[in-house]
């Protein structure tokens, strides 16, 4: 297996893990913030929101998934371009639509289908480019 082929496969696997963790994390955060309610922009309001998020189990579950996402993201960008990893992560939105149709039997309108087609085509286009376009030492010499 060539170096580039290995690089593509391991990046793909890491991006898939990122997608799972990010989606689960976002869902938990949204649920947690709905439980807390709208944040008031004032000293006591922000303090109250901070305390509420600290004491909310759903928010912590969201944070756990987002830590998983961050670790996968850190690993992926250690060998691949940021501009390669970042758009590939959007594949999660397309996956959500497929899950909504197959599991929740939701009706999907034309606008959403066009969005999914654009995301998948965009990710495929980015995926065809070389995952790493920077020389490790040249790009990061302080």
């Amino acid at each position, binding site marked *: 297996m060539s170096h580039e082929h290995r690089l593509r496969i391991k990046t793909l696997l890491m991006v898939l893990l990122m997608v799972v963790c990010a989606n689960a994390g976002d869902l938990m955060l949204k649920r947690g*913030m709905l439980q807390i309610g709208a944040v008031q922009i004032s000293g006591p309001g922000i303090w109250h929101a901070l305390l509420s998020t600290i004491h909310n189990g759903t928010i912590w579950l969201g944070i756990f998934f987002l830590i998983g996402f961050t670790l996968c993201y850190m690993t992926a960008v250690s060998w691949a371009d*940021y501009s390669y990893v970042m758009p590939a992560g959007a594949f999660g939105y397309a996956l*959500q639509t497929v899950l909504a149709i197959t599991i929740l039997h939701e009706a999907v309108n034309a*606008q*959403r289908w066009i*969005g999914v087609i654009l*995301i998948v085509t*965009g990710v495929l286009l980015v995926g065809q*480019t070389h995952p790493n376009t920077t020389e*490790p030492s040249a790009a990061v010499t302080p």
Partner: protein
Amino acid sequence: MIKVGAMLVFFICCSTGGEIAMTYGMKQVGEPEGFRPMALLRFIGKAMRNGWVWFAAPLLGASFYSLLILFSWAPLSVVIPASAFNYVVGTFGAKYLLKEKISVKRWLGVVMVCVGVTLVLLTGGS
């Protein structure tokens, strides 16, 4: 509306700035030697000793809290499409700060993803 717009700009700056700083740091750290627990722990340890990773952390923290505030202020159908603009801002950052070579094909892909994410989420797909 101005308050939501200002918070969105703050979120995009923190999020993109944090991710670019994190990428810069992780390029210095290098990839993990393997995926066994000890190799992963050594990798995390090396990352924790990198200054750019620590520079990125508060920015990503600020982006996280600004996103939480945005979720509580505005519906997802407003917040997520606007934050999808991150893809374009991030690609500019990758080109000019990280010196990545962005081909026409990659640009086209990024723009398609940005528009696609906006369309999906405007239909309430999150």
